[in-house]
């Protein structure tokens, strides 16, 4: 709306404009052409020209400079010479119920020698016979003349012990479960894993590249929540969901905590949500159950319902290696797809012979051995609970317990002091060692392991020493 224009203003405007045009007529040609050129240049600049990208090609000299300038990090970072792993106790003898350290014998509550088969004469004799027949090494993987008749015998015996169809053995305990999981679970599959599983299982899970859903340690409600969530997701993509395999990875008795998994409920959920169960019974083999068959026997669950049970020969059986048992449908697949089985030399025959003899002893003794160890674990648990100032973690029938100090006090330094003090009183115990990149690093603790041949007096003595140590550390 501006001010209304008077007639006079319009006449002035017209006159000015006319004058402009007249001046154009009188201007020289070069002037006009230059003006037109400028106008056209402005139009072109505004409308047509695109910003030119900056050239990224390097010259040879620049490349050489980059190469010369590049400095790698050192291969390994500097290490602390006082790290406990560099200052371990060096032994020189049988590490059985007692162990000799610096010339003194002490009671051993630190090694996984549950059934005291280390140093057992029958097992040693069988191992010696095996060396005299087969030599030491097996000199090849299972596929290339590394399968010795003694391996086949051990696999059959393990399957028979667990009343399963088939068994398979590995030459290294760690590699067993770490090779089994990637053999079945691939990129698109889903793994429901307890947070407290031990490191080898974590590595297996990592190697499989599957989707992992961690649930809180031994918390069945948390597992149900995850399963329900997954079911909802499945309903959205029904066709794809029909090809996604699901697995539940748990331990029978957790090495890091000493507690038993709630297996009956997990088996119920298995048939509701349609997943397969892979259970690692490293600690519970030979220690839990009336005949040492593990958590399935303890809960009286049909072993056919568990798809695969894996375990180790390095704890109760007193040998080296690992194994898995289950139905032929499941186990046979590993013979071609488990990397730790196909691409590695087989178990030395003498260790297989030792394991067979260990199984013989376990089957002969039948229930006595296992009743005894469960009984003693309960008694030890009661005694430990009576020491005020320690927090005991683990089931009462578990032969493996974790001891911690009350919250504020619980540091590795103090626990090491307790260990050292105990050593001066001829009790050998150890702080549980972990690597820092565990999925859920457990709190520092002393891992106590019960040997079935410990007498009541020896257990009393252990508790007395622990009591004394506590006093020493907290003052």
């Amino acid at each position, binding site marked *: 709306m501006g001010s209304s224009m008077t007639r006079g203003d319009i006449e002035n405007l017209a006159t000015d404009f006319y004058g402009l045009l007249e001046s154009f007529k009188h201007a020289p040609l070069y002037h006009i052409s230059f003006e037109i050129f400028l106008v056209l240049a402005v139009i072109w600049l505004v409308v047509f020209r695109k910003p030119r990208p900056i050239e990224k090609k390097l010259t040879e000299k620049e490349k050489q400079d980059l190469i010369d300038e590049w400095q790698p990090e050192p291969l390994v970072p500097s290490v602390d010479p006082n790290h406990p792993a560099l200052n371990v106790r060096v032994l020189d003898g049988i590490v059985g119920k007692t162990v000799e350290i610096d010339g003194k014998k002490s009671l051993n509550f630190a090694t996984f020698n549950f059934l005291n088969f280390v140093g057992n004469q029958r097992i040693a004799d069988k191992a010696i016979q095996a060396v005299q027949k087969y030599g030491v090494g097996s000199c090849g993987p299972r596929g290339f*003349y590394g399968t010795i008749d003694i391996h086949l015998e051990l696999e059959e015996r393990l399957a028979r012990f667990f009343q399963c169809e088939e068994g398979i053995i590995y030459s290294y305990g760690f590699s067993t479960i770490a090779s089994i999981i990637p053999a079945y679970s691939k990129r698109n599959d889903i793994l429901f894993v307890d947070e407290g599983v031990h490191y080898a299982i974590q590595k297996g899970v990592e190697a499989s590249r599957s989707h992992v859903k961690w649930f809180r340690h031994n918390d069945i409600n948390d597992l149900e929540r995850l399963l329900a969530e997954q079911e909802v997701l499945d309903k959205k993509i029904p066709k794809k969901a029909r090809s996604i395999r699901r697995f539940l990875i748990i331990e029978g008795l957790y090495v890091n905590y000493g507690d038993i998994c709630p297996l009956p409920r997990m088996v119920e959920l298995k048939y509701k949500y349609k997943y397969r169960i892979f259970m690692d019974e490293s600690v519970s083999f030979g220690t839990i159950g009336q005949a040492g068959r593990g958590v399935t026997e303890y809960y009286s669950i049909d072993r056919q319902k568990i798809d695969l049970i894996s375990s180790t020969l390095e704890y109760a059986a007193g040998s080296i290696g690992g194994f898995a048992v289950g139905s032929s449908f499941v186990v046979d697949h590993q013979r071609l797809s488990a990397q730790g089985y196909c691409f590695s030399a087989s178990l030395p025959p003498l260790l297989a012979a030792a394991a067979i003899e260990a199984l013989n002893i376990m089957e002969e003794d039948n229930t006595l051995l296992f009743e005894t160890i469960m009984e003693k674990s309960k008694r030890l648990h009661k005694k430990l609970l009576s020491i005020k100032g320690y927090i005991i973690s683990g089931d009462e029938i578990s032969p493996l317990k974790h001891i911690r100090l009350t919250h504020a006090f619980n540091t590795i330094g103090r626990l090491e002091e307790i260990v050292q003090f105990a050593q001066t009183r001829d009790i050998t115990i150890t702080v549980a060692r972990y690597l820092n990149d565990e999925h859920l690093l457990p709190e520092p603790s002393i891992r106590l392991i019960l040997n079935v041949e410990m007498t009541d007096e020896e257990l009393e003595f252990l508790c007395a020493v622990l009591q004394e140590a506590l006093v020493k550390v907290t003052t």
Partner: protein
Amino acid sequence: MNKSSSSSSSSSSSSNSKSKFISENVFKFQNHEEFEETPTWAAVVTVLGYAILSALGWLRDFLRHIGFEEKKTAYDPNPKDFVPLYQSYECFYTRNLYTRIRDVFNQPIASVAGAEVHVMERLSDDYNWTFKFSGKKIPSINLGSYNYLGFAENQGPCSEEAIKSIEKYGLTTCSTRHELGTQQYMKELESLMAEYLNVEDCIAFGMGFATNALNIPTLAGKGDLILSDKLNHVSLILGARLSGATIRTFDHNDVKDLELQLHDAIIHGQPRTCRPWKKILIIVEGVYSMEGSLCKLPEIIAIKKKYKAYLYVDEAHSIGAIGPRGRGVVDYWKVDPNDIDIHMGTFTKSFGSAGGYIAGKKTLIDHIRIYSHSACYSSSMSAPVVLQIISALNIIMGRDGTNDGQKRIQQLACNVRYFRRQLFDMGFIVYGNDNSPVVPVMIYMPAKIAAVNREMLKRGCAVVTVGFPATHLTESRVRFCLSAGHTKEMLDHALRAMDEVGHLVSLRYSKQNPHLRWHDLNRADYDKEYLSLN
């Protein structure tokens, strides 16, 4: 496909043949490696063979699906509405191709895996779906086990040491290296091995596969680059994957490709962010077990120094078996052991035991002692296994007062030369380096994999035949592993058998060499060479 590369270095000057170590004129340093190209017609026929087998496989699967044929595979004990554990196509190969020739793999033995072995006879009356043992044991010459220096013995000083150690130490400590698992014999083994390899320190583990898979993650991580040879072993690939570093492969033993990749990697930095790499690790093997080739160590070391990368050499098959003093590829190429950052190897092959080691500078080994997954979570090595290695090492190093060790190394070198030369001259295509105790002979066609194995077993030779997926689809082979325990008579027997089988099954593919029968070869020539070397 492949090339034939040969470079013969200057042979060392002849020296006093009574010298303490293997005399130089016995071990003339000739580095010749050859990979004759696959004849085109053989490749075509092989692919055709697989196509026919696949077509038959589909037909059989269809017949099984409609119920015309019985399903022989095991049944899933779970209810039908569970997601199938195996996809049908994943098992196609196993069901239809592998099962046909399943009897040649996983053959059980019933004796020590020495130079001679007793193979247990298996019979099947349902085309390899199930086996029964007949109880018969077939004595055969063992050309399949890894027994390079012949230490797979059930008698002798090594077994005696192993037996003594069982009495003294038991079989296991049931504890990890970080806790209570370090025994005096472990320290002895580690210092002895460090001395053997001429490096500062060494650490040993209970399994060779685990040594790679569980320790490479401590050396490399996110932000690092791993350059790995295309034909590296599965354990190296698994270790590299678990480490989280970026992995790139270079063509097998191709030094130019490696240099190109290094060059580009440093210039362009990490993908997407273009940040410089934190470090670069080159992973190679000493002897490649399927090809028989040796890595080109001097050139790789030159490149690694130029570009400031780190070098990891896996000497699983070369330690003890290669080199005039049995110290592996470092000894063979006469390079400085300090130029290789990480020496790795296994005790399974040349020492007749089990386990693996990593050796290098003390700072490296200390780091591994602290951070290795194996040292923290696995049981420590078993006493007899360790004592076997220690006594084998003492023998090889001559510390037991005899020259048995040198004799074994010498015997192996002779056997390798003798065997390889004759196979070559008969017209077979033999891959690999002239000095490698791993002798792959090409057979290409899938049906011949089974034929060669069965026929050789009939003639008393236990051999290993491999096909897909361990090798390339068209490159099936029979792989001989020679041993110091093989005598000349055994090798002659094996060569005669190979000659007959080669004639029966048509394995003479070579275009470079004439096709000769064994009796056509000039026996006197080979015998003279063998006896002079010995």
